[in-house]
């Protein structure tokens, strides 16, 4: 984590409790990532996707975004009701815009859901979306990957590699869940406990019930 300044400071206005610093830095890193040019989208397009998803979720009229309708529909549906997303929707989007842009959209919306979800949990006002950084898309896409009974191409493995069609995005994803949940090393210990904080059984209660209500095994 760098906590590199991205125009947002994450003050968690309205939170019932103070927030630990490693978590604040993790969210700043996610925000910096969201506002920066991605593999196929500019920083501005990524922020617009986030604004669109937020608006649809709140029942507001989303701002105009110059991206294909199928991509916007995927973003909004995944953000509001992930269980409604299926292979037909994802593959239809990928047929129109390509797998890399589809995966990038899934990543943007998912990371936004992490930050917004935690703010709702804390009772804090949602963080304003980051200022987009200038620049063109990086074009960094892994080659040779294929679908493995999955909606999108990915390497063999479990969910930590699910976004690795876009290597830089996959790296940010994996880095983010240490402060939010547990690092991969901490996951090796059934008796892990944040001190002060929840023990692993209590952590798994939150994760299990969240997944249950989202109709997802993860």
């Amino acid at each position, binding site marked *: 984590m760098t906590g590199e300044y991205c125009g947002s400071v994450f003050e968690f206005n309205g939170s019932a409790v103070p927030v630990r610093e490693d978590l604040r830095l993790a969210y700043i890193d996610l925000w910096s990532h969201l506002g920066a040019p991605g593999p196929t989208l500019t920083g501005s397009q990524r922020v617009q996707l986030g604004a669109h998803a937020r608006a649809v979720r709140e029942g507001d009229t989303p701002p105009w975004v110059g991206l294909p309708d199928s991509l916007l529909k995927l973003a909004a549906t995944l953000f509001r009701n992930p269980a409604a997303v299926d*292979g037909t929707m994802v593959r239809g989007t990928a047929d129109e815009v390509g797998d890399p842009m589809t995966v990038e959209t899934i990543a943007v919306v998912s990371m936004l859901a992490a930050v917004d979800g935690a703010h709702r949990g804390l009772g804090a006002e949602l963080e304003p979306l980051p200022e987009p950084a200038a620049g063109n898309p990086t074009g960094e896409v892994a080659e040779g990957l294929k679908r493995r009974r999955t909606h999108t191409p990915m390497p063999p493995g479990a969910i930590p590699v699910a976004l690795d069609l876009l290597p830089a995005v996959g790296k940010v994803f994996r880095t983010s869940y240490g402060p939010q949940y547990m690092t991969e090393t901490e996951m090796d210990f059934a008796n892990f406990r944040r001190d002060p904080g929840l023990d692993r059984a209590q952590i798994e209660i939150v994760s299990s019930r969240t997944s249950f209500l989202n109709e997802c095994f993860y």
Partner: protein
Amino acid sequence: MLRESAIAFGYHLNLTAIGDPSVAIGVPGGDELLRFVDALVTGCKADREDARTAIMDSLGPDCLVDAASVFGNFEMMNRVAEGTGIPVSPRAVERMKDTVELPDLDRLSTSSESH
């Protein structure tokens, strides 16, 4: 996983509470954590405030931060899983068998493995 971590801490876990929070889960603060997640997903503002207060009273303010961040993390993980269509592993299905009613399990398993 939840079963193993409950054993590690000596809790008398009732896994069915994950699918039915009206059942006591047998972990300190666990019932409050279940209600917290429910309030975030389906509750109103007052439900969420009550749920936060219950966690602070039963577990303390640091645990509210952890609960909120874990919830956020799984809002992300669930969307990555659904969006990419990563298959549910047989181990995960086996693990969930005593927390999810069989019809629900069959539906979730089928929808995840049909692509």
